[in-house]
């Protein structure tokens, strides 16, 4: 196993656990935890040389953040 793969798996699990059970139930912090999991996924893709998949994932993540921010700023404040 190369280092990118191991680091990718660790960050993926950490990000998923952090965003599934966040310490502060706040929309923005949960969204940032999801970005951590996304970073882990990108490291896994990097380890397997999936260039086009990484580029598309980066672009799509930017748009997903915009879409979610739009919902969060219009929706009711959390709990």
């Amino acid at each position, binding site marked *: 196993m190369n280092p990118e793969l191991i680091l990718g798996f660790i960050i993926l699990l950490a990000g998923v656990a952090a965003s599934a059970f966040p310490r502060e139930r706040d929309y923005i912090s949960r969204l940032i935890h999801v970005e951590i999991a996304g970073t882990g*996924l990108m490291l896994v893709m990097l380890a397997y040389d999936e260039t086009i998949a990484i580029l598309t994932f980066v672009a799509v993540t930017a748009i997903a953040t915009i879409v979610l921010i739009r919902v969060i700023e219009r929706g009711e404040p959390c709990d």
Partner: protein
Amino acid sequence: MMDDYTIGLVVALIAVIITFYAAFREKNDIHRLIIADLAEVSALAIIALIATDLAEALIIPGLVVGISELMALSEIYLVRENLNRPVKEPFRIEVLDTAPAIIAAILVIYGIVLSGFTGGVVAGTGMVFYFMGKKQTERFALVETVSGYAWAFWIVAFFIFMVLPEYWFFAVMLAGGAIFAKVTAKMSLIGTMRGEKDV
């Protein structure tokens, strides 16, 4: 000793199980939307483990379908909760005041270098940032007209492949440029979602 694929599969399945358990327990709708995004990430990890061109071929449509699903769900939520009025106090995101022109220029130039579908997505992301940063009064009818002609050129390129295969290089260039313009135009529409009253 287990190989990479088995270990990765176990890790990714643990991630998927945690995600779905969280989605099962969550009651708040916006939190559920965010978990839907997380579910996409952890499910893509399973596909990424295949580690060949097949993985790329499966990931890219997955991402496109995932973003459309997220946009549709968020739109349904906003309509159902009657939240389509303009925002009273929007987030002040400082980077959107200063950076969009530079980021847009870099991303559009890099997208032109890449060309094709991926280039269109990269250049489109640049235009998304630009339109989100500025208060736009652009002529979207013009952008859509360009997009329509680009689609027609794309079809023409496929006819060249079938009827005149000896001009394949010209057809490749035509198809790459046309799909680039089309994807960029479509993506730039997303950038206007925050600004105007009724878009």
